[in-house]
């Protein structure tokens, strides 16, 4: 063994260091290892001196060369870097400065030398009274005390160590990572993979005969095609729909839901109306209670309607499956490879479609290659058995195999996950300690565990999920994974091991903004969660503004803004002019705003723009839709003019030139003189056109969320405008023969306006 030289402290060397620690560190690092003669003791080997023995000569020189090189490397690192600086930022811990155990094993020796020597003259610490075993509060009890007013997700502790948390909608959720993550998470969603724990979404299950369920779903939900149509009825696809309170369409929008039908087994044909079916409604936690109530009302309505038809008693059950399932959202092109690498599915001979799908998953360069909403049901082995996982790489075959298309089918979507809704929550059978003991018994260290008979087989669902809109040209594609409760942590560790980033609410919001998709509840102005959210935001912002001295804050009075923290929809809606002759435009105090959903938006805009009496056209259209839903016709109380005037529609906004999109920026119509300057040569405008705000400007809406979009390179956002004003914009643009819609946007803190392009948020079939 080569011996290390002792450091010789020279007497009174120059270079006084402030503390002996750094000197000791540098000297430690500067040691050069020397070779010790092992043959010096015994005289039996050759008596020739070292320099004449060839092998020993070269050996000694080689050793010295390596020792010198190591010393050079260590010296540079030893004086300038600490041991934990060799770790990536996400593995560094604050306690590493005083606790050696917080640093990985291979760095512990180095960390020990760098540590401060214990202060010998410090006063001794009094030994704290440690509670005995009887009095210690168990950890579960300690943690459950913090969960009295809010719910923790299963992955809470993992997230709490790495993310900033906030209580939202009754859950403690992650907002954003503590490290800098804005650009890396954007890159991950565009080119890599980013995971979001969406287990705060809640499932409501509805069980009953198929005919009743179809009419229930048609009654309260609206989607591009009817959620009860054959497309979704088989259970092969998930339907993204908007839930309304029954009997008050188009008012009282509850919120967006995802509808999953339980897949039919091949033996049962679809046509039978009396076959028992199950539907899942996956909804946001802020609307789960109102959705539950709405579904109960709809189910009673539907059962009442069916009683009159025949004598048989039908029953529709509505069950709240809160906390029974976890959701993971994986977005990004590499998400398919991450899933394929982390999961070990159990293959079945009967399901050839699944084999083909699993094979196809490997060649998928982007999840967008598979149809949106496609459901795949599978069963996997415990992910901890095959830990650590490795991502598969995309293999694009040189010769394309014969078209073995993977289509959505009810057989592919079959999963045992549906059966667990009735069963009590089953925890994983083996804890990590048991599996580690098993792994220790392996003959070859570091090998993976073979699944045994006793090991768990976890059923799960994969849903092909997209954030996309017709207007946003940057869709985000990914997967949604539905797993039973108790399994979130094993799957999370496997999925994140290969470098998948994990994001919080802010990352999800950024993804939706880049995709041009309105996010719930911030961009849905007429819903209850929006009202709650904006009231809370208004209170905090107003408080902040009032605390600020007048010289340092924006003077909203001077800018002519009455309430800078709340959108005044009444003001937006009362500006429109009615087109029915004989009615003068009046400013009404009471407005009942309603949101025109994205499935109808483009058709309604075209229709009302072309019609001579838009109010009547709209009334007829909505009445027709209500009847198609199986609802009663529009009540006589709602007048056509009110409906036409109170309609709001979501738009996607992009600034044309310079400027920023702040919160609650106001959207105005372009005046005629501005139209003349801007409208003629919109394509040739490179710099921003200086637009000023005047009191005659007609406000048509607000920006509900705006930010700088990295993928577009310009500020963009989502806003809400009055439908009638949108028609006005369309007419303006037709007059100057411009294909797009141009408006101007003014932030709350200034008088200058920026030219912007808006587009309807609409969903084409």
């Amino acid at each position, binding site marked *: 063994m080569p011996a290390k030289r002792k450091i010789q402290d*020279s007497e009174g060397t*120059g270079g006084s260091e402030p503390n002996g620690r750094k000197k000791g560190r540098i000297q430690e690092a500067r040691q050069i290892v*020397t070779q010790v003669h092992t043959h010096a003791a015994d005289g039996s080997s050759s008596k020739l001196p070292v320099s004449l023995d060839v092998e020993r000569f070269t050996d000694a020189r080689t050793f010295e060369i390596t020792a010198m090189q190591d010393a050079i490397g260590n010296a540079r690192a030893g004086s300038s870097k600490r041991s934990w600086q060799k770790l990536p930022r996400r593995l560094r811990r604050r306690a590493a400065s005083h606790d050696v155990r917080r640093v990985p094993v291979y760095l512990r020796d180095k960390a020990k030398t760098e540590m401060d020597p214990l202060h010998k003259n410090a006063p001794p610490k009094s030994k704290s009274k440690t509670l005995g075993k009887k009095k210690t509060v168990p950890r579960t009890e300690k943690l459950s005390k913090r969960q009295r007013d809010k719910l923790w997700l299963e992955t809470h502790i993992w997230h709490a160590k790495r993310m900033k948390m906030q209580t939202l909608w009754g859950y403690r959720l992650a907002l954003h990572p503590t490290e800098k993550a804005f650009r890396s998470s954007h890159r991950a969603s565009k080119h890599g993979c980013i995971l979001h724990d969406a287990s705060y979404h809640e499932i409501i299950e509805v069980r009953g005969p198929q005919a009743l369920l179809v009419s229930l779903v048609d009654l309260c939900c609206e989607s591009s095609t009817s959620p009860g149509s054959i497309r979704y009825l088989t259970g092969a696809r998930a339907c993204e729909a908007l839930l309304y309170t029954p009997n008050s369409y188009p008012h009282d929008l509850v919120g967006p839901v995802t509808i999953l039908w339980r897949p039919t087994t091949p033996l049962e044909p679809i046509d039978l109306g009396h076959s028992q079916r199950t539907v899942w409604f996956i909804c946001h936690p802020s609307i789960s209670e109102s959705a539950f109530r709405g579904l109960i009302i709809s189910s009673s309505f539907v059962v009442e309607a069916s009683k009159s038809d025949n004598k048989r008693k039908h029953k529709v059950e509505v069950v709240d499956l809160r906390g029974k399932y976890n959701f993971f959202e994986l977005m990004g092109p590499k998400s398919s490879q991450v899933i394929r690498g982390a999961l070990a599915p159990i293959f079945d001979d009967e399901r050839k479609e699944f084999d083909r799908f699993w094979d196809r998953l490997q060649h998928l360069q982007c999840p967008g290659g598979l149809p949106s909403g496609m459901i795949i049901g599978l069963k996997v082995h415990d992910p901890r058995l095959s830990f650590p996982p490795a991502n598969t790489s995309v293999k694009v075959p040189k010769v394309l195999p014969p078209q073995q298309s993977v289509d959505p089918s009810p057989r592919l979507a079959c999963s045992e996950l549906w059966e667990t809704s009735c069963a009590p929550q089953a925890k994983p059978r083996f804890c990590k300690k048991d599996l580690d003991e098993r792994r220790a018994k392996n003959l070859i260290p570091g090998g993976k565990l073979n699944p045994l008979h006793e090991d768990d087989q976890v059923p799960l669902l994969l849903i092909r999920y997209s954030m996309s809109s017709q207007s946003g040209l940057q869709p985000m594609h990914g997967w949604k994974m539905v797993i039973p409760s108790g399994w979130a942590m094993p799957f999370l560790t496997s999925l994140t091991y290969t470098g998948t980033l994990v994001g919080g609410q802010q990352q999800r919001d950024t993804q939706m903004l880049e995709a041009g998709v309105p996010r719930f509840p911030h961009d849905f102005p007429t819903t209850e969660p929006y009202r709650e959210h904006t009231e809370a935001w208004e209170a905090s912002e107003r408080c902040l503004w009032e605390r600020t001295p007048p010289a340092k804050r924006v003077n909203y009075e001077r800018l002519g803004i009455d309430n800078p923290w709340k959108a005044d929809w009444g003001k937006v809606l009362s500006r429109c002019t009615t087109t029915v002759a004989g009615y003068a435009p009046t400013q009404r105090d009471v407005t009942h705003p309603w949101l025109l959903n994205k499935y109808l938006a483009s058709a309604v805009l075209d229709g009302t723009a072309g019609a001579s009496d838009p109010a009547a056209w709209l009334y007829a259209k909505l009445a027709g839709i209500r009847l198609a839903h199986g609802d009663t016709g529009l009540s006589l109380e709602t007048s056509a003019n009110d409906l036409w005037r109170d309609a709001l529609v979501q738009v996607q906004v992009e600034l044309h030139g310079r400027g920023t999109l702040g919160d609650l920026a106001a959207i105005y119509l372009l005046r005629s003189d501005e139209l003349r300057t801007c409208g003629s040569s919109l394509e040739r405008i490179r710099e921003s056109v200086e637009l000023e705000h005047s009191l005659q400007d007609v406000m048509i809406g607000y920006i509900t969320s705006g930010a700088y979009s990295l993928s577009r390179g310009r500020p963009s956002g989502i806003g809400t405008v009055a439908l009638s004003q949108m028609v006005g914009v369309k007419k303006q643009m037709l007059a100057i023969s411009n294909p797009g819609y141009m408006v101007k946007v003014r932030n709350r803190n200034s008088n200058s306006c920026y030219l912007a392009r808006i587009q309807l948020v609409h969903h084409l079939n």
Partner: protein
Amino acid sequence: MVRFKNRWILVEFLPLPFPNQQSTTLNSKQIYAALKQSIIVNFGDAGWGAVGSSLNVKYFSPATNICIVRVARDPHRIAWGAVTYLSSIEGQKYIPNVVHVSGTIKHAQLAAIKHNREVVARYRARSNVGSNSYEEYLAKSTAEIESLQD
């Protein structure tokens, strides 16, 4: 701010072995003592007073006889001269060969590496052993072992 500048002297001690003399392994302390004596003898007490506080033998390898000595910059020529005048350590005769003098230890280490490589290359070229020495030795020893087994 005043900086304390050093000089790092890379020395190789080439032994002059006598026929009836045992090769004793040296120590850095022995080299230090010999250097001190050499300075006192050749440069007197004034010389030792100038050098002595900063003199330090930082590295010595008995296998290769390479030594790195640190001195302050101002009197480094005294120490250099003393190294050159050093003719014997612990009774055994050596020829000191100062290979390199530099301001940092890093360059002294790099110079040591370079010197080692040159020496080995020179040795191999002169001895005409080439790269076959190890293979020949291995072949010879395996043949001996196999003959033993039979």
